[in-house]
């Protein structure tokens, strides 16, 4: 049963006898049978190394990735371009460590890179301060909730249904074990329903979480919502796609309390949906409540510029029980990739990519509608992701895409045949035209 654990049958018997049980199975008694595998895994007997390699290689041949098939999937993970300089620099041996070395005596380079990352994120989001990054967008959203619940009197966070599903689930899980609640705001025509938002505000509501552009790619105008939030002294968290911030209204411009999101599309691969990299930036007022690591700039005893971790001692080491978060990790290597990406692209570059992406997404949208196979869902402003309704049976459509080496579309609603299509700067005009052409000849 455990072919890779080098103990003999007599070793096992000796160990079982020592702890007074009959079989290894007994050790797993505590796990309810309903969630346990009934019987052994269906695995073949041992093979030689050569055979294992051949079998695995034949399985791997069936995989299709974004380098082979054109990818129009999004929903939080994007097939964005990674400039060659990024893997070249991040693979340097100085950065190849399983654990980020934070000791200032030996880690000035790493700390300096983190400091630059924070500056870039704060400027991109128009917020006052950022931390050194978090695991991913969803956990950053959950940490943001912890900030606004700190010393708050209520126990409820309102979350718009137009926030990405995964993010909502992660926030719910984090809050559940703190005795806090998530109440969803209904969506109306794929946008946050203002009336439902207003009707759900009671004295237990502390704040609200919204997403820009929303999970369907639509650009919601949050001005009316923010006006109500501020008038009622509620707190606000905005989950914002960083790649959109070169052209869309930033969290800082909206006046939110905490900005969060995911920087995967800034220099990091899709990596099967993770590891990604979360960002969190906030106001000066919340600076001391920022979870995780923060690198600060200081002077050493000779008066030279030096970088150190800062503002974390109080909550994380001295008063752990009072802390709004005990997270101590960040995603340093991915943050480094995003730092290089942002400094390489600059303000103008980030803006140009966003405009380029938006143009391509709108070009494809119009082309697909013109192909005759699709109908509009709503005529709303969108960024690089949009909804479209298929006139064809979805299975037939997806098979057709596969036959042309195009990845199937993300299906939002199978019954209504609503698909979600994402376009990144990686898509060429030729690819977009090919997709439109494939649709045109379909009948």
């Amino acid at each position, binding site marked *: 049963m455990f072919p890779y654990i080098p103990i003999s049958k007599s070793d096992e018997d000796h160990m079982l006898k020592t702890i007074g049980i009959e079989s290894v199975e007994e050790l797993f008694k505590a796990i309810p049978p309903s969630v346990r595998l009934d019987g052994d895994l269906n695995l073949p007997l041992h093979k030689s190394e050569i055979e294992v390699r051949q079998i695995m290689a034949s399985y791997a041949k069936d995989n299709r990735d974004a380098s082979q098939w054109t990818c129009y999937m999004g929903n939080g993970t994007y097939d964005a371009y990674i400039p060659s300089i990024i893997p070249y620099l991040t693979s340097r041996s100085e950065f190849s460590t399983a654990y980020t070395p934070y000791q200032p005596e030996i880690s000035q380079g790493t700390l300096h890179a983190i400091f630059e990352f924070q500056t870039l994120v704060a400027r991109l989001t128009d917020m006052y301060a950022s931390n050194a990054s978090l695991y991913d967008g969803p956990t950053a959203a959950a940490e943001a909730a912890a900030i606004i619940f700190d010393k708050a009197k209520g126990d409820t966070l309102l979350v718009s249904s137009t926030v990405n599903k995964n993010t909502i689930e992660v926030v719910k899980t984090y809050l559940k074990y703190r005795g806090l609640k998530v109440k969803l705001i209904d969506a109306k025509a794929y946008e946050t329903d203002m009336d439902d938002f207003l009707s759900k505000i009671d004295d237990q509501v502390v704040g609200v979480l919204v997403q820009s552009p929303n999970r369907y790619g639509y650009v919601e105008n949050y001005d009316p919502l923010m006006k109500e939030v501020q008038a009622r002294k509620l707190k606000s968290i905005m989950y914002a796609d960083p790649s959109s911030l070169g052209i869309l209204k930033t969290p800082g411009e909206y006046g939110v309390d905490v900005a969060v999101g995911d920087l995967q599309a800034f220099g990091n691969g899709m990596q099967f949906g993770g590891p990604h990299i979360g960002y969190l930036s906030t106001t000066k007022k919340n600076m*001391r409540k920022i979870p995780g690591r923060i690198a600060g700039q200081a002077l050493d005893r000779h008066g030279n510029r030096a970088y150190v971790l800062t503002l974390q001692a109080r909550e994380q080491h001295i008063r752990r029980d009072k802390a709004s978060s005990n997270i101590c990790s960040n995603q340093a290597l991915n943050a480094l990739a995003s730092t290089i990406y942002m400094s390489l692209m600059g303000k103008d570059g980030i803006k140009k990519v966003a405009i380029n992406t938006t143009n391509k997404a709108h070009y494809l949208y119009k082309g697909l509608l013109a192909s005759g196979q699709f109908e509009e869902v709503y005529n709303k402003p969108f960024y690089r992701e949009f909804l479209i309704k298929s006139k064809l049976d979805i299975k037939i459509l997806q098979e057709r895409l596969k036959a042309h080496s195009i990845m199937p579309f993300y299906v939002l609603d199978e019954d209504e045949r609503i698909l979600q299509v994402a376009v990144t700067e990686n898509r060429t005009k030729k690819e977009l035209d090919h997709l439109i052409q494939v649709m045109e000849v379909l009948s």
Partner: protein
Amino acid sequence: MKVLDNLMYNQAHEWIKVEGNVAYLGITDYAQDMLGDIVYVELPEEEDTFDAEESYMTIESVKAATDVLAPFECKVLEVNDSLEDEPEAINKAPYDTWIVKLEIADPSALESFMDAKAYEAFCEEEA
């Protein structure tokens, strides 16, 4: 150690200056000396109300981060915003630097406060 005659004190080493049902509150010279260099004061929100003994702010110095408890049932009328940028003012001039302005719910709560002389004696005893 400096103590002013026109103020009232409690055992938490806070001073108050009472005007009707309003009290300005700060920490004493003795307290700032014990805490060392103050680097941050987490102030309560204006308009919030607190029960006596309820934690309502935090004073962080290079030595420790200390929760401060409300001395009596009160409502926060005003906080000293200048402390956000200049927390060291408490070290420099503890009696000129009020931290919060409180509305006193029940004036009888003031009976437990000491005058300057009694507070001085209390500090000597504690030392």
